[in-house]
């Protein structure tokens, strides 16, 4: 039992648990969609006075900020107490790909050569941390949701706009993975 908890969890338990979280939120009268928090933060910072899109009753969505606070705590707990910082065991093909990108095989949960302030002003660091983050925030609001809102909630509710969004997610992701990443040498 102990080992099961401390080893990485298999895909089927993880997928089931994610669905349970989504269903639990529905039973509490809420919808699972994480990226709405970015809009809420913009509204809470007072952007609503100048930009109509952020002029809404953001306090009614503050439950989602609590959920985000929990996610942050959960990340801390899993990493420090449940052995969550183990490097992922990748396939041989994925390892060869890392080598082509000039990255080491996983030493930890995330590539240290990317997620570190040291690399913020390298081409790769800037593209990942700043440009990547910006595009996630911009795209998710334009599409009206992220992986949780569209791929999980929307598809589970058989909403066709979510299928379009997920097709977009993969179109953008595949082009970036295969054609943009190789250009981001250093």
């Amino acid at each position: 039992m102990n080992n099961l908890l401390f080893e990485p969890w298999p895909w089927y338990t993880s997928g089931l648990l994610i669905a349970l979280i989504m269903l639990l939120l529905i039973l509490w009268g809420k919808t699972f969609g994480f990226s709405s928090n970015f809009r809420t933060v913009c509204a809470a910072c007072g952007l609503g006075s100048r930009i109509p899109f952020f002029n809404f009753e953001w306090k009614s969505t503050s439950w989602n900020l609590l959920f985000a606070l929990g996610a942050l705590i959960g990340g801390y707990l899993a990493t420090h107490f449940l052995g969550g910082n183990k490097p992922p065991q990748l396939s041989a093909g994925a390892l060869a790909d890392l080598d082509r990108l000039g990255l080491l095989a996983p030493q930890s949960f995330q590539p240290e050569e990317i997620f570190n302030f040291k690399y913020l002003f390298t081409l790769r660091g800037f593209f990942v941390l700043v440009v990547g983050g910006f595009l996630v925030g911009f795209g998710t609001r334009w599409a009206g949701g992220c992986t949780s809102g569209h791929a999980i909630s929307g598809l589970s509710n058989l909403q066709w706009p979510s299928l379009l969004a997920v097709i977009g997610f993969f179109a953008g992701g595949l082009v970036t993975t295969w054609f943009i990443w190789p250009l981001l040498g250093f």
Partner: protein
Amino acid sequence: MAIVRILNSKKMFKTLKFILAGIVFGIIMIKSQAASWYRIREMFLFESFHMFGIIGTAVAAGIIGIYLIKKCSDREKIKEAVGLKPKEHGIWRYLLGGTIFGIGWALTGACPGPMVVNFGSGYAAMAVVILAAIAGTAFYGIIKNKLPH
């Protein structure tokens, strides 16, 4: 005893339950490794079934769960949430917005949830990603009316 009384007070529970759900979500994201840049890259390379398995299982279980809730519940609030605010009409917003999101997803290896989860795990540089995402959302709000939806 004091703790029991605090937990019993309804308002406190309303706050705590969302934090608790978030904690479980954060733990799942780390323990499933769905929050790892490596796993997202592996998914887009079609080098592993792992992420497809996670999303596929979640959607399959979600479809069954939502169907059951729709059938069995008649509480107004739940019905409203199950409606999941019928998505707005349009094609471009989903395809183009989704594509932009996908580019960002493959760069950062993190969607919005995992960004926050990783920050919690101790990747302080994720703060940059989160701030950039908030800036991206603000920028969308500014130019919203000029974009096709």
